[in-house]
Structure formats: C-alpha cells, structure tokens
C-alpha cells in the first residue's frame, strides 16, 4: 500500500482538470503563454530581417514613419511604449522619438519665461530643427506631434490646442478650458485680441471675456498693452511670428535646467 501524500493528490487533481479542459478542446492559458514565447522568437527574427533591410528608411523617410505608426496603431501596438520593446531595440524608432522628446522639453523650457509655456507647433519645429544642426535626421511636424503625445505620460501639462489650421503646444500645467482655447483661436490671426472683439465674435458678456483674459495674463500667456489706441490689447507671445528669428540669449539659456 503506498502512501498518498497531499502533494500527490493535488497533482492528480490538476492532471484531471487539465484532461477535462483538453477534452473540451480549450487550450489553457499557460500553454498559450508557452506558445507565445515561441512565436515571439519567430517574430523577433522577422523584425530583425526587416530592420536589416529597411532601418535606414525609417530614419530618413518621415512619410514612411507616418505609415509605420499608423499601421501599428491599427493593429493595437504602440512601438514607442517602452525603450525595451522590440520596435525600439531593433528598428531604433524609440531613440529617435525619445531624443526628440528631450529636445522639445528643452526648447519649451528655454522659452517659457517669454511665452508662458505656449508655443506654436511651427515655431517649435523651427527651433528643434535648428538645435539639431545641419547633419541630423530630418524631423517632420508629425514626428513632433507623436513625441509630444508620449510626453503627456509624465504629467507636466504637455498638450496640443488646435488653432488656425495648426496647433499650439502647451508645456505647463496651466488650466486651459474651452473658453480659453476659443479666445486663443480668436487671437491667432493678429497675435492679439481685445474685449470688444471677443464680445463681437463670440457674443459673450463683458465679464466672461475679462475673466478669461485675466486668467491668461496671470498664467503669463498674455501681455497687456494698455497704451494701444482705442482699447487695451491682449497680446499672446506664443503667436508672435517675429520671434521666430530671435535666438535664445545666454541668460535665457542658463534658465534651462540641465
């Protein structure tokens, strides 16, 4: 008579359950995980092959990058989720976008004291390209948008506001609701806006318009020109196009965090 320990009984029960499942044709999760491990190795090989042939294409061709990203999104894969992901390790997509993220943060930080943390996508693009130098890979606006979307995970208020056919990139946690956004869009054409213009275009009451403009002033996103002919003008430095040609001065640069 052999002893039946608890151990042996438990194993026997498990084997019974497994057999039952297999009978019903269900594959167990642990078996599938083992299967996934194998398939992953195969996939890795395919990806390596793809990378050896086309890695350059991704680096050089922004249109190809767009296609690549859209295809990934369609099948439910985020190639930029982790630097440890296959896509990043083998295709190098990760480093491209993560480095871009660093450059975006630095540009926004350097200009924050001037524009309050709001910058047009165009100006950001221009400055990032300048910072990268002549021999670096080309970067498209689509690339910037994707890098910014990833930066949102770090909670520092990175966001994009649609304005006049393009975007304003926000890099501070200033609370901007629909009212603020609409006023920004109104100001986009001339770089400034007045209370009357808001009342005429948006049909708001004076108090609502002033409340919004005060908030923008407080957050450092707008400057008040009280000496303008007629009524005071609220200017948005983020929308100044002349500023495109100005470089960041050494004092401004030292305010950037290392």
């Amino acid at each position, binding site marked *: 008579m052999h002893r039946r320990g608890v151990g042996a009984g438990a194993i026997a029960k498990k084997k019974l359950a497994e057999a039952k499942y297999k009978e019903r044709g269900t594959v167990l999760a642990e078996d599938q995980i083992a299967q996934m491990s194998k398939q992953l190795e195969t996939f890795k090989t395919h990806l390596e092959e793809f990378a050896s*042939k086309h890695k350059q294409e991704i680096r050089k061709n922004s249109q190809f990058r767009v296609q690549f990203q859209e295809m990934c999104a369609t*099948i439910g*894969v*985020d190639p930029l989720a982790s630097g440890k*992901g296959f896509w990043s390790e083998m295709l190098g997509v990760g480093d491209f976008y993560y480095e871009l993220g660093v450059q975006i943060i*630095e540009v926004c930080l350097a200009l924050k004291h001037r524009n309050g943390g709001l910058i047009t996508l165009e100006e950001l693009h221009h400055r990032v390209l300048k910072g990268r130098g002549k021999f670096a890979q080309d970067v498209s606006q689509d690339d910037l948008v994707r890098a910014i979307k990833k930066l949102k*995970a770090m909670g*520092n*208020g990175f966001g994009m506001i649609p304005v006049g056919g393009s975007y304003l990139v926000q890099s501070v946690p200033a609370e901007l609701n629909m009212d603020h956004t609409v006023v920004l869009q109104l100001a986009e054409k001339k770089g400034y806006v007045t209370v009357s213009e808001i009342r005429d275009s948006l049909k708001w009451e004076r108090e609502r318009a002033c409340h919004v403009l005060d908030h923008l002033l407080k957050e450092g996103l707008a400057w008040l020109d009280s000496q303008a002919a007629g009524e005071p003008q609220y200017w948005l430095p983020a929308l100044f196009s002349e500023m495109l040609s100005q470089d960041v001065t050494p004092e401004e640069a030292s305010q950037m965090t290392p």
Partner: protein
Amino acid sequence: MDRFVWTNGLLEMNETLVIQQRGVRLYDGEDKAKLDVGIVLLSTHRLVWRDQKNHECCICIPLSQVIFFEEQAAGIGKSAKIVIHLHPCPENKEPGPYQKSKYSYIKLSFKEHGQIEFYRRLTEEMTQKRWENTPVSQPIPTGTGPKAGRTRAVGIVGIERKLEEKRKETDKNISEAFEDLSKLMEKAKEMVELSRSIANKIKDKQGDITEDETIRFKSYLLSMGIANPVTRETHGSGTQYHIQLAKQLGDMLQAPLEERGGMMALTEVYCLVNRARGMELLSPEDLVNACKMFESLKLPLRLRVFDSGVMVVQLQSHSEEEMIASALDNVSDKGSLTAEEFAKLLGLTVLLAKERLLLAEKMGHLCRDDSVEGLRFYPNLF
C-alpha cells in the same frame, strides 16, 4: 529659345512618337516665349512644339541638344514646369523663331497638367538615347560639332543618368519597404490576437497561472508594445525591466536631487537620464513605471503627483512638514513671496517653487493675493 528650328512637324523614318501633351506654353528662360499655348511632342529624336490654333507654326529641337532637365513644382497661380538646359547653338543651325536669346534654358509650362508622365518619358528617352542608334534621313543639327558636343553631353548626362537610377532605386526600395512592412504587421497582428486570448483566459481563470508566468506574459507584452489588458494597474507589479530601472534611478538621482532641494520634475529627470544614456533611451512611460516602483522596492525616492498634475521625484528624506515649515519661514522672513522670488531664493525651478507654496497654502500656512500682477503668498494670519 534660339535653339529651336522651324519644322513641318512630320516624323522621319525610324523616328517614333513617344508622348504628346496639349496645353503647354514655352518659356525662353524666365520670360514667356512670344508664342501661344500649344502641344508639345516628344519623339525618340526630338522635342517638337506646335501651336494649338495655328498648326503651321511648328518648331523643334533635337534631344541631343539637351544637357539636363528638372522639374519645377507648381505654385499658387503657376503651373508645373519642366526646365530644360541646352547646349549652345550650333553654328550651322537652321532658322527658328528666335535669332538669339540670353538664356541657355527653356521651360515647358504645363497648363493642363501631364508633366509627370512627360517627365518620365523624357527621362527614359534621354537615358536610352535612341536617336544615336537610329539616324534619320534628314540631318538634324546636333551640338557644336558631333564629337565635342557628345563628350560634354556624356559627362553631365552621365551624372543625370546616375541620379535617375538612384531615384528609381530609392523608389523601388520604398515600395519594397512598404510591402515588407505590411507583411511584418500581419505577423504582429497575430501576436496581438494571441495576447488578447491569453488575457481573456487569465481573467476567466481558465488554467492555473503561476506568478512567474504572469510576469513572463507581461514582459512579452512590453516587448511587443501591447497594452496590458489584464491588470487595470499597469504599474506596481511591473516587469523585471522596470525593477532594474528603478534601482538604477535610485542610485543615479541621489546627487542631482540633493543639489535641487530634494525635488525634481519628472520631465527634468527624463532629460537628465536620457542625456546621460546617449542611446537606448527610456520612453516616458518606462520612466513613470519605474518611478512607481520606488516605494515597493523600499528605495529612498518617491514619485509624487501634485494637484495640478505635475509629477515629481522627491527624496524620501525631505519630509513634507520640513518643506512646508521652511516655506513658511522664507515667506515670513520676506513678508511675502511670489513663485519666481522663492525659486531664486532656494535655487529651485519656478514650477517646483510654485508647487511648494501651493502645498503650504493647502495646509493653511500661507494665503494668496491673486492679481493680474501675479500670484503672491503671505503668511496666513487667520
């Protein structure tokens, strides 16, 4: 435009028409030619242009006169053009519409489009140079003497040919790349579906998954970039990678944090760490997931989220009470402070200075004076 000669427009023996396009206006260099809109014809030997209304008006130029050509994109109110650079006029040239010209190039302006196909065919003809192999009965004036013209043409046209081959090669590469990409995505899709099936089974408890297997599954998801569908918390029980990363950060950030008053915004950390790494950079999500593990790994750092949404890494040793007490001291000392002033005082960034003042205010130690001149904090005497 002075390279053109009058012609009857009839094709010679051995000369074949390749393509023709209506709605084309000629330009003598930058100036519009004194001709109306017409039809341009490309043959194996020549470029011919005929006035659309007056068919008698017909001129041509041999392809051997062409040094090189390029596309000029359309603009607002401007049609797309092909710019054709030409050899100097041969001495024995037949009469044409222009006696002389200051330009050595012409343009074809495609008012009714067709420039893409025309350009393609022109490229083919210029590459194949079929006129060299099949001489026509009527002598067509070539360059400044057959030999001199040809050697010069070979040099530049040779370069042009190489560029064209490279362009074709690139186009081929791109379409091959897209095809390979589609195939790759098909395989990736299979992985996604498999992982969803596994996730569902784990949820329905079909099978006996060990802790080990769960961790392995999560690392597979990380490798593929698939969002974890099982656990609603994607942090906490992170993968081995995040655990390692958290420990590395614990070491790396001690000194920088000390220098910055014990606190750094996560975006600062991101820049610092990635600049140091140089390659194999961290994604923003990697950083966040690693920082979320500080507490469970008992590292002396913490990830903290302020009400405003700002995320910071702070040293465990810098307690909340200490920070608030020192903020109160500083403000009382100066009577009142703005975030900018406080930042300068402590050597913090303005962002973090503001967060500390807000925190002290939340705890009831400071109160604010909010005006368009800025946000200023005073000791709370209420």
